[in-house]
């Protein structure tokens, strides 16, 4: 327990975090690339074609759609947790984490919406339907954009961090409320007449799981990269950043 606390506090040091993530990143990228290649191979070539409703190849969209939809929500929760850590324990690095997650999370949300509606056209015959899931995903995108917009409208970074963290926390309280409201609302008016999702053919399962893992890793890698940039940006004045910058430029000269 004490060890865990020390670890937690060490992570709070920008320098430590920067060095550690620097060590981890190559491995994460390597794993991401391998899984992506395998997963994309499976999903684009080796997976069966869905014959129901004449979707044919459009089912392949699922391998991007489902992971990105799942990530979009996980990312928001992660962002809110980082926000709480930042506000409660006054750990500045946590704010850098929220700031790094937001755009990646928003991109995932957008991807889920985009792949969803591209998939919707051939299967349901419409780009958009006010279905509970789709709608709450749209609102999630608005929440992300609100966070990003709020952060960007401050010139003082520490104010921006604190204010947008409050927003992230308020948002996460509301996500379940939004989800259940929307679900209730739509089923009141009309049932799920469009398609029944559910029982997934095992033939789809393996590639889907690989893609899920790949997308998770990709997400982590992207966030860590942004986080490192953010840490450098926020600690421009400190000595270790200067040393690091000199070190890299010296290395650059040699090669």
């Amino acid at each position, binding site marked *: 327990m004490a060890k865990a606390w020390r670890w937690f506090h060490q992570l709070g040091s920008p320098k430590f975090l920067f060095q550690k993530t620097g060590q981890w990143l190559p491995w994460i990228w390597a794993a991401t690339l391998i899984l992506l290649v395998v997963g994309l191979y499976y999903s684009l070539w080796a997976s069966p074609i869905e014959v129901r409703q004449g979707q044919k190849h459009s089912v392949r969209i699922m391998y991007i759609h489902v992971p990105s939809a799942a990530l979009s929500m996980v990312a928001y929760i992660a962002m809110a947790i980082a926000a709480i850590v930042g506000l409660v324990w006054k750990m500045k690095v946590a704010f850098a984490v929220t700031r790094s997650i937001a755009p990646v999370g928003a991109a995932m949300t957008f991807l889920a919406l985009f792949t969803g509606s591209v998939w919707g056209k051939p299967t349901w015959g419409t780009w958009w339907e006010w279905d509970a899931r789709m709608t709450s995903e749209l609102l999630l995108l608005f929440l992300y954009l609100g966070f990003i917009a709020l952060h960007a409208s401050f010139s*003082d*970074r520490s104010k921006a961090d604190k204010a947008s963290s409050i927003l992230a926390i308020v948002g996460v309280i509301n996500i379940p409320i939004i989800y259940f409201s929307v679900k209730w609302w739509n089923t009141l008016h009309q049932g799920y007449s469009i398609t029944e999702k559910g029982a997934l053919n095992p033939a789809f399962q393996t590639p889907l799981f690989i893609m899920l893992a790949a997308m998770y890793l990709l997400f982590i890698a992207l966030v860590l990269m942004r986080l490192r940039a953010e840490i450098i940006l926020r600690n*421009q*004045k400190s000595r270790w950043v200067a040393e690091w910058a000199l070190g890299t430029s010296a290395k650059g000269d040699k090669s």
Partner: protein
Amino acid sequence: MSQTSDIQFNGLYAHELTVSRSEQVLLEDAELHLAPSTITYLHGENGAGKTTLMRCLAGLLPADHGEVYWNKLPITHPESNYFQDLIFLAHSLSMKNELSIAENLSFYASLRTKVSLNKQQLQQQISSVLNELGIGGLEDRMFAELSAGQQHKVALARLMLEPAKIWILDEPFVNLDHKTRGWLSEKALAFKQQGGTVLFTSHHHIEELPIDQSVGVEHE
């Protein structure tokens, strides 16, 4: 960490205060003591950090590090009555354009829980302060329809209407004519004699106001 027991100073005491703005450290590990019955003059060039320090002492700006004590208690301590005792006048005048002078002033006065005047007494007091300031009779004029100096006078009138033990005044002499500068100096001296603590900035030398302590803020 608020080591309450350590501080032996009455009045306002800032301990190891570090303040930064725009990622630039303005003050590092500064100690500052404003004792009761003293007038402190804070000076420094434009952009040196006077306003920033004042906002920090008033508890409006969080310090990066260090603590501010009022009568031996940290100002954020639940039992501290710092905010009851403080009047902070900033560059912005905190008055509503849509309200009349009297309405603006009585609003702030009635926010002070210690004030137990009835309405009429308060109106009378307001009138008499405005009279002293040479804007008597304008009680019902909208704040927006005053000249720059008149607006400033209204903000200063608060000092006379609200009970306090410490005044933090950011450039209180700006835009004032000679007569009013004299008035303010006089009032500050009287406040000091009653045990009050005053901290003020000014870019001009105010001959009427003898100061007890002079603190400089410097930009590196």
